[in-house]
């Protein structure tokens, strides 16, 4: 009697992707369900453009599937996926500068969000003001929940550098949000 699909480890599911037919499909679907939100969050927040983020998101999982077809060991699934996404995002950034779409602008200006929603919108705006190397650290830490070691693995930078960049990214965001956070702390 086997286990339920949800009980399988990432490595076991990753190996099953090389199987034929239904097994591979089920394994891929399970891994996709586990990690697609985080990958998309990274793509969307890092690129700041929904259409571009969707393209990179799809490309990430297609590349991931191709990786699985190659006989390779996989120890950290989220790191692998985010590494693929990051590489694609960085390449995309190099090709074109991200712009704020008119729709995004309208949404930002005409919504009447609650305090938390307003704070979130400010965080997104402040993220766009950060240098890419700080922005991605913040996203990988806060959105994707990666440990410092994993972030170091994904980005290929030393752990100490990760610590510093994460710290500075948060400080930068705090500085940008400071007036709002002060108002918020009064209530």
């Amino acid at each position, binding site marked *: *009697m*086997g*286990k*339920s*699909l949800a009980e*399988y480890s990432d490595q076991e599911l990753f190996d*099953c992707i090389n*199987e034929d037919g*239904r*097994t591979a*499909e*089920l*394994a*891929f*679907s399970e891994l*996709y*369900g586990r990690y*697609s*939100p*985080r*990958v*998309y*969050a990274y793509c*969307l*927040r890092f690129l700041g453009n*929904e259409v571009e983020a*969707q393209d990179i*998101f*799809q490309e990430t*999982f*297609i590349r991931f*599937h191709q990786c699985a077809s190659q006989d390779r060991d996989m120890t950290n699934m989220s790191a692998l996926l985010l590494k693929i996404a990051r590489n694609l995002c960085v390449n995309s950034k190099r090709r074109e500068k991200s712009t704020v779409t008119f729709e995004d602008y309208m949404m930002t200006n005409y919504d009447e969000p609650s305090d*938390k*929603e307003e*704070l*979130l919108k400010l*965080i*997104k705006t402040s993220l766009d003001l950060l240098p890419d190397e700080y922005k991605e650290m913040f996203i990988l*830490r*806060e*959105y994707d929940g990666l*440990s*410092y070691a994993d972030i170091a693995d994904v980005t290929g930078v030393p752990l*100490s*550098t990760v*610590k*510093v*960049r*994460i*710290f*500075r990214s*948060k*400080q930068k*965001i*705090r500085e940008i*949000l400071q007036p709002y*956070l002060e108002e*918020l*702390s009064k209530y």
Partner: protein
Amino acid sequence: MKELYNNTPSELLNLYVDGELPASMEPHLFGQLSQNEGLQSEMRDLLSIRDAVQTDTESFTPPAAAHRGVFDYLGYTYPGGIAPVAVQTVSKFQAFVSRAWLPVLSAVVASLITTVVVNNMINQEGTKANMASKNIPVVSSYEDLSIENSTKSGATNPADADIASSNNMININMLNNSTPVAGGVNNSGSAGGVAAMESKASTTAFEPDNIAFNSYISTDNVNSDNLNSDLASINNINNSSFAGPGVKASMYSPASSGQRIYAPQSISTSPSEFGGSFLPYRAKGYRLMARFNNARSTGPGSDLPSSFDSQFSAFENISIGFLAGDGDWKLGIEVGQESFAQSFQSEDCGILYNVEQNPLIFWGAIVASYENADLKLYDIQPFIQVSAGGSELGPLGRGIIGLQYITPRAFYGAKLGLRLGFESARLWYQNQNEFNSSDRSGINFGMSLHF
């Protein structure tokens, strides 16, 4: 460029919030935190930012188009549970039609076949009874001359009297006391309408045990103009042909032999008077029935999405039936479609996984309905209906109990019936050599046409 990290209270706080601070350094941080208001404020800010980020559902929800793009590219089936389908290309109505045409067509074909078969059965069983009550003459038979025609004929039936008095009828009384018919009728060579009579009488034979009930000859092609000549011809038949060569008149003489003598009773030359397999009154007791249900799955897997929650559940759970029978019991067939929630475990290449689905299945069943007329109150009558049949997935059983109202008057030859009841159904299906079942129960409602 070397980036410095000096383990300041603020840096330690960041490490602590991110879960990266070594346990040995926590007391030091807590000490600072209890005294430093700026550090406390910074901690609140960091937690607020984290809290706000966690509510960013937009970022954590890839669009359905993105899901579909990935799975389509890889040639996998798109798992609907991951995200709602963004674009529905087929309308509910189109989906219903595409699924319903087959069971509807099956129902129509099955109804026609059943109609033909049951009609033929009724015709074969009840020829005499039908003749007596419905004035359907037979091709040919013989009258027991020892019995008075008026008492045994359709005189009790006004319709018979009408028919007998029509111009096209030649009263068999004219043939009374005549020489009984023999094979010679075929050879009479009479003209006019009698010729037709002769042709129909070709199967004439003596049937001592057969007592016919009508005493007329029906010949549509005999008209009043040549009635006299027809009568003359019949007289000729009486006097000559009936006692033709090979027939000994004395053999059939009541006076001489005392035997029961039979004479031609009725001869029909009109197709409309023959058989009547598809006449409406033959269809009495037939019922065409359409019913819907709003049942939902019960038992294991009952938490699955059920058709009960669907916007058009009634149309996804539809059946059409055909029942026949004049008594309390009615039998027939029913076909339909409905969804049965399934919850079972399947194993594939060592991976055990749960399958939860709610497929729409087509089914067909034999139906028996019991409706006791004595229990009818204000045209409302209880009924019990059971059915057994099969579906795409496996055998299916169903029971319905409820009330039905049938209009007392017929409209355009049919009475309208409305029904409401409670139904319970069970589907058995097999997966990997293991039998599972799925139950449904709920409200059943429908309408019917009673012929």
